[in-house]
């Protein structure tokens, strides 16, 4: 921990950054913290309790516009950063990344390209829980599955915490807010909630880091991160992994791409 | 049971006027004639207009309360509801909830000179007051109107501008933005604040009413200051987004003032007391 504090302090003192996005102790678990100067770095914590993908703040112009930013990035935040780079949202000119390895060591990245390199060999933290839940759902009949998701999504009140917590949801006007035509009914009912989640998840295809922040953010505990988890699996199986130099798998045509789904 | 404040009155579109590209005026008559005869409103008030199937939209009532039997609204096609309203034909039915909000204190203006300053699509809220005061002309001193739009085509109420221009008891200056003028344009060329300054109206016993896009209002206030108008003698309207129109949906407040209940008409004195969040 002191490592991180010292490193971030150095970054402030050398003028490399004037804002650091990390975590501090919160009410029950660590929460995001915006550090503005070397003195405030003593509040920083960074360990495996730190959840919530901080990369979500990197597209918030009101917070980071014109600043030199450092960020504490978990494995999944690194993946999101890498994806945001490929979408031309981030630049070495203003961003410095400090990661956390699986064994709890700090990773200092000299550039965003190094983040990309690192991700080629780093393995994702296991998601046994999610894998197990997806298996349970897959074992259901079609009717049971429909019932499961109807029950879960009937709870949704469309607070859009899932969208707000997602680093990839940075559109200034979301499809749910477009009303000419009204693609998705903006009020909460089971069917319109499903429409929303299906659209959200499809928009993540090939971009999602599988961090699970959407599910974690849901105040009603709806396991929507299983949708993105399963989708990430499907995309990887059919079009290759995110971040393996193929670009955005669903917006980059490759001659070897599968076409058997086209009727 | 109380009556349902969200249930609109049905109105028949009696007449449609294409004012400018994308800008229309609808003249509406209450379907329930008896209700229509009893219906009253005052200059400055607004209403919620329904295009059934698309939703509701907020505009001021653009006709004068002195002209009985109908209300008019003028709007630019911009979003989903205004586009649907623009597709209505004469004889079609639409919805109307209102009148809502406060009013211009016309009664307090008796015996005073009036200076109307409007830009673009903001003439409609002012047109209501202009006709109201012209229809009770004997109550007021000099009446001057400065109105500007991007180009001659964008001017709304073209026939009425002509009528006002021909009246000996109205001083009218119509202007278009520099570069917007056409070869046959005979009015002023320049932005509204500059034309006001050139007109050099006396602040003596005069009320200035200013309606326009935020930037025009922002640039006009200093001109009025320079001319010596006191903040309590300058009026404008705020047009915040709203859904209910009656102080419940939570959108239109500026600090603790609700545009739907405390406005839309504010004197500049009142405006200065508001936080800068409009």
């Amino acid at each position, binding site marked *: 921990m002191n490592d991180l504090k010292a490193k971030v302090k150095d970054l402030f003192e050398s003028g490399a950054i004037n804002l650091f996005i990390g975590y501090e102790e919160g009410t029950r678990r660590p929460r995001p913290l915006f550090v503005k100067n070397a003195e405030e770095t003593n509040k920083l914590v960074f360990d495996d309790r730190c959840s919530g993908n901080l990369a979500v703040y990197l597209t918030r112009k009101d917070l980071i516009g014109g600043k030199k930013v450092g960020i504490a990035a978990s494995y999944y935040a690194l993946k999101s950063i890498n994806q945001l780079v490929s979408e031309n949202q981030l630049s070495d000119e203003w961003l410095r990344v400090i990661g956390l390895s699986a064994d709890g060591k700090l990773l200092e990245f000299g550039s965003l390209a190094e983040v990309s390199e690192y991700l080629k060999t780093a393995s994702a933290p296991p998601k046994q829980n999610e894998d197990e839940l997806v298996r349970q759902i897959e074992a259901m009949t079609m009717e049971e599955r429909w019932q499961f998701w109807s029950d879960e999504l009937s709870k949704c009140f469309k607070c859009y915490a899932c969208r707000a917590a997602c680093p990839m949801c940075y559109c200034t006007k979301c499809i749910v807010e477009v009303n000419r035509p009204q693609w998705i009914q903006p009020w909460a009912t089971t069917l319109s909630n499903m429409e929303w989640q299906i659209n959200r998840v499809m928009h993540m295809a090939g971009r999602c880091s599988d961090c699970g922040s959407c599910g974690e953010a849901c105040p009603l505990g709806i396991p929507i991160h299983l949708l993105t988890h399963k989708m990430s699996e499907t995309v990887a199986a059919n079009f290759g992994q995110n971040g393996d130099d193929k670009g955005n798998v669903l917006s980059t045509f490759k001659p070897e791409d599968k076409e058997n789904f086209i009727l | 049971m109380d009556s349902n404040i969200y249930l609109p009155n049905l109105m028949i579109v009696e007449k449609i006027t294409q004012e400018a590209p994308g800008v229309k005026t609808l003249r509406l008559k209450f379907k329930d004639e008896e209700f229509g005869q009893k219906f009253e409103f005052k200059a400055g008030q607004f209403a919620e207009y329904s295009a059934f199937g698309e939703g509701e939209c907020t505009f001021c009532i653009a006709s004068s309360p002195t002209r009985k039997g109908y209300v008019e609204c003028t709007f630019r096609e911009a979003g989903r509801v205004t586009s649907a309203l623009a597709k209505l034909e004469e004889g079609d039915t639409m919805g109307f909830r209102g009148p809502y909000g406060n009013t211009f204190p016309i009664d307090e203006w008796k015996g005073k000179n009036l200076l109307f300053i409007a830009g673009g699509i903001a003439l409609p809220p002012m047109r209501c007051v202009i006709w109201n005061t012209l229809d009770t002309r004997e109550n007021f001193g000099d009446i001057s109107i400065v109105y500007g739009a991007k180009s001659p085509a964008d001017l709304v109420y073209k026939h009425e501008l002509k009528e006002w221009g021909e009246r000996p008891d109205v001083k009218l200056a119509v202007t278009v933005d520099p570069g917007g003028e056409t070869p046959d344009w005979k009015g002023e060329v320049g932005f509204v604040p500059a034309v006001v300054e050139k007109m050099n109206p006396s602040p003596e016993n005069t009320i200035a009413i200013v309606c326009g896009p935020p930037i025009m209002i922002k640039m006009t206030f200093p001109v009025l200051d320079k001319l010596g108008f006191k903040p309590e003698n300058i009026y404008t309207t705020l047009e915040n987004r709203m859904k209910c129109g009656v102080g419940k*949906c939570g959108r239109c407040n500026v600090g603790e003032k609700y545009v739907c209940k405390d406005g839309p008409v504010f004197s500049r004195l009142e405006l200065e007391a508001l936080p800068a969040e409009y």
Partner: protein
Amino acid sequence: MERKYISDESLKTFINQLNDEGRHVYAPVAKGEKTEFERVKSFDKISLDHIQTTQSIKAVAFPRTEKLFSYTKNKGDVTLEDYNPDLIPEMVVFGLHPCDAAGFKPLSNIFNWGTPDVPFNERRRRTTLIAMSCTQSDEFCFCTSVNGGPGNTAGSDILLTPIKDKNGYLVEVVSEKGQELVSKYAGLFGEAPDVDKEAYLAKLSRKFSLDDLRGKISHMFESEVWKKQSERCLGCGACAFVCPTCACFDIQEDTKGSKGNRLRCWDSCGFSLFTFHTSGHNPREVQSQRWRQRLLHKFSYMPERLSVVGCTGCGRCSRACPVDMNISDHLAEIADLSVVTTEKEK
């Protein structure tokens, strides 16, 4: 206020009979880690162990999506069908805590400001609140800082306080509605035990002084504190939607062919497009302005305009927040501020 006693067994009978006579009974039901209000048809489904349900029970009077009226279009013509209050059932909410019961007053003041709101009032009129005092609390609770308390009777029709050593509850009959129910089922109620109610309630220390907070917050529109506090805010609507007093709504159109309904649905001042004008102008452009609106609305505008504080200290917003925007911490910070910015930023 009349005080009575009801045993554990009689309470069961009471609630079951309210259901049997056709009332819709809403009560907390535990599902996994969450407890939520649900319609229950038997007392056995009810869970009373929770500290707080995730959502408040405001939806009985202000549903997340509600029809305001219907219309039918026929060529250019339109016919309307007004809101029908006869479709609203008689409702009983059982097991809500005093902070939820108290929430109906701010809601009612909003919905009746100037003009009465029929859908809200008709639902509220048909709702009876049988609340349960709190015997436990957590670090997010702060009712005692906003004029409430774990045994506060305000807003309830009947308030029950568990008296463990008497195998039942102290019953406080707060309103006429409550009196009617108690009279109707008089056989289930006994004489009030001679106990000190306070001794059975959760102990909550005050986190801030409401007077200090109100004295400051109304004069600090331009303060830097909004920016600082809102940095981590993600701009979702979780806080507003779980709140017992948040009433902001949107009006939407649900059309199928020539028929349709005009709907009211929940909205949140935290959303970036909440105040967005069609022209592109947005009076509350950034999240700090929206956070300021949320707190000023509850602690300055509502007290000023509606004579009621827009917060009951239930702590739900803090529990629901994905980034731990702990409202009582933020309010305490404001109440403790020594310097207040009053200058107008231009």
